[in-house]
């Protein structure tokens, strides 16, 4: 009975995460918005697990684990980037220009 509203909240949070990614230039803030998106998805899983089964919660567990790993590696990359370019502004990091 909380399914509908939960999915709505999840949708809104996900969209806010997307807006954040589109809106910001700072690499770390973009990263945080990505985490926001992941959390929205987690909420969806948990909400649906009430209907379909406990596998949903297990899945959330895995998502969190992977998110942690990803955050660690990603932030390490940001640090390395900062060391080279002295900035985390993504607009200046454009060496892949075609």
């Amino acid at each position: 009975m909380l399914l509908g509203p939960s999915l709505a909240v999840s949708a809104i949070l996900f969209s806010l995460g997307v807006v954040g990614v589109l809106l910001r230039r700072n690499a770390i803030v973009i990263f945080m918005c990505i985490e926001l998106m992941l959390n929205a998805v987690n909420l969806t899983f948990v909400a649906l697990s009430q209907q379909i089964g406990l596998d949903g919660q297990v899945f959330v567990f895995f998502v969190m684990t992977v998110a942690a790993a990803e955050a660690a590696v990603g932030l390490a990359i940001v640090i390395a980037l900062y060391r080279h370019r002295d900035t985390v502004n993504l607009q200046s990091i454009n060496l892949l220009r075609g």
Partner: protein
Amino acid sequence: MTVVFWVVAALAIGSALLCITRKSPVASALWLVNTLFQLAAIYVLLDAHFIAAVQVLVYAGAIMVLFLFVIMLLNLGRSGPSDIKGPWGKVIAGVGGLVLVSELIVLRNVTPPWWLQLPPGTVERAVAERGAVRVVAEPLFQGYLVPFEITSVLLLAAIVGAVVLAKRRL
């Protein structure tokens, strides 16, 4: 019950909004922490007690700390020039977000087929009978053992990767 849910949901959305619009990365991070807390509350309302706990411990407690750590390390805490995009960027972001949210809202009106659905209240009862941890642990270590082990390898790789990438000199 529902009132709590709505309050918490509103708080979550509000802090998410603030998170993406703050100039200072530290502020963004802290508002994100708040959002995570609200989400944990929602998890509790959805009978996912263990997950809620893990959310607070891992997400808010470890990952966000890591974020703040890096922000401080790179000295980004001070207020500098804003990193929000210009007017065109705002327009694109706004439009994109609106379209996306409308599509998703429409899509959420989907009910799983009857043969997938459990009788209502199953999860509540399971949690009441076996406890929140057991409800997650049993499938995790029985059905999903292999993914569990692989995930641990993944974590190892992540550790090694993080160390290597962030080194000053290889």
